[in-house]
């Protein structure tokens, strides 16, 4: 009976940890055919790799530079055939408690070969990453937003985002280069990113870093309102009457910064 090997991707920022996992996976091949499709140093590399070499299982560390394991799992939800994700972690009290509660699979480093094998044998029965479970993990704000374009996952660095604007079913992400469409809730994004964005309108969050200034405009019918002037894009956005206080708030901050 020629079983198809289980395709595994290893994600860890520490080379020795990746090497150790590879050794352990080798040890498991006697009991279970395994093919390691690759190794990645962080979540971002992992996503790149997975576009060309799909895997059924991703073994990922949690703490990693550029993109951590939990953020990786969130982006993997958007991959056409999402893999099963098992986290490997050295020690992470709080996260582990949350993992238990949400029945997210994890292995504790150093990993024992028996534990690894048991986890691998479970994989075909496991469902891919579950949105609701992942969303309850104690994650820090994402560094990227991910959108699906022609069945590929495209990462948009949060640092590049000028504004987020809700339109009907989608949110438009505006970067200096182009626009993307995102299917998420503006309120959730506002909560996740805290002070990075400021709400200027019921349907619009603007990145503080891209605000160049404000301008008072008078319509043809004599109504006056504020507009946000932006860096990086040649556009301006209206500030709603309800959010007018942000004009004064940001103005004051700018003055304080100048003084300091």
């Amino acid at each position, binding site marked *: 009976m020629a079983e198809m090997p289980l395709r595994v991707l290893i994600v860890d920022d*520490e*080379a*020795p940890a990746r090497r*150790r996992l590879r*050794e352990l996976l080798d040890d498991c091949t006697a009991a279970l055919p395994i093919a390691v499709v690759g190794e990645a140093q962080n979540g971002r590399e992992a996503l790149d790799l997975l576009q060309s070499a799909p895997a059924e299982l991703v073994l990922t560390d949690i703490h990693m530079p550029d993109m951590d394991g939990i953020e990786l799992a969130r982006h993997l939800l958007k991959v056409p055939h999402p893999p099963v994700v098992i986290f490997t972690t050295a*020690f992470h009290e709080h996260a582990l408690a949350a993992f238990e509660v949400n029945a997210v699979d994890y292995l504790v480093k*150093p990993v024992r070969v028996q534990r690894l094998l048991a986890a691998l044998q479970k994989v075909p029965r496991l469902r891919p990453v579950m949105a609701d479970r992942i969303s309850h993990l104690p994650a820090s704000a994402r560094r990227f937003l991910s959108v699906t374009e022609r069945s590929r996952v495209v990462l948009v660095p949060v640092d590049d985002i000028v504004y987020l604007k809700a339109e009907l079913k989608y949110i438009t992400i505006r970067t200096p280069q182009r626009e993307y469409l995102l299917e998420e809730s503006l309120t959730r994004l506002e909560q996740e990113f805290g002070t990075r964005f400021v709400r200027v309108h019921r349907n619009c969050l603007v990145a503080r870093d891209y605000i160049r200034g404000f301008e008072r405009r008078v319509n043809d019918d004599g109504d006056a309102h504020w507009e946000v002037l932006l860096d990086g894009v040649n556009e301006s956005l209206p500030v709603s009457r309800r959010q007018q206080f942000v004009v004064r708030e940001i103005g004051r901050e700018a003055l304080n910064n100048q003084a300091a």
Partner: protein
Amino acid sequence: MQGIIRQKPELPALPDLRNLGTILRILLAVNGAALVVALARAPRLAQVIGEWVSLTGFVEPHLLADLAVLWLLYPPLAKLPYGLATLSIAGITVAIAAAVHVPVIYASSLDAESLLRQVLFALAAQYLLLAYFRLRARALSPAITEARLQALQARIRPHFLFNSINAVLSLVRREPQRAETALEDMAELFRVLMRDNRDLTPLADEVELCRQYLDLEKLRLGDRLDVDWNVKSMPGDAMVPPLMLQPLLENAVYHGIEPSSERGTVSINIFMSRDEVHVLLKNPYRATGGSHHSGNKMALANVRERLALHFDAEASLDSRVNRDSYEVHIRVPYRGAKARSSEAERREPVLKPVERGSVPRNERSRVGLTVAALPYPEVSRG
């Protein structure tokens, strides 16, 4: 001698009469007492200052001479039993009162009674101060236990322990010799971490511990971690609180190196200047606002508190955030190895021979003076 706090708090002991904190407290107390006397004696509030100035004019020569003599005689005094030491100090005080005031009595028209009054005032002040210092030492003796507990808490993050074990495991099959060295380093590190860390240790030992720690981190992080040691001119025999640097280096790696996939350098610069040991630690830092840097303030506060317990006002720890780096500056008074406790001597030496005392002391003092002159404003990380 272990700073202003004695090692055996159950035995009453003299305060460290060479410690800046002690001397400041004495000066403040005596002048404060003079102010109270002035308040009581002056018929009008406006005259209090005048009265105070004339009183201090009377008190100060005596006080300063007394402090200077005690500063000189402190080492032999500290060896006497407490009762004998206090009596000797009383004797010194009376002798100085006589020496300072007899000429004054002859020169001016003051009577001999003023000498008696002066002596009584000085003895009363001295008794009260000694009682105060004894009470203070007693109050702080739980604090020194606390310092030990804090040293326990300053111990390595479990995160580091498990990742290191994992890294060693990855070496076992292919590079058994490197695995051996790594395990030996870990054993050394944990031996220090698990011992009673109440006593001061030689700086060279602490530096050696840090080297072993950073070697282990390098095993894990590979090229991402560069370490720049600049300790050629450090006084290896200076006595410092144990685990003064290691927790800060652990922070430097955790916050400065691990969050980035790029190469980063942790630099350590230790030098001597004007009888003080300066330690400058620097690591790259990017403000990302992630959850990765909680816990940093805890390690800083921990080390700062232990420095204060051992050295009072004579040591300091400042940190500051620059555009892309983070710096910690520690200043401790130079206390040579002669003050080393018996506990430290019993321990196995872990020094590299080249590092201890290879540079003559006067040369050490010259190194890094310009750096030491830089101001280090206290900046908290927001």
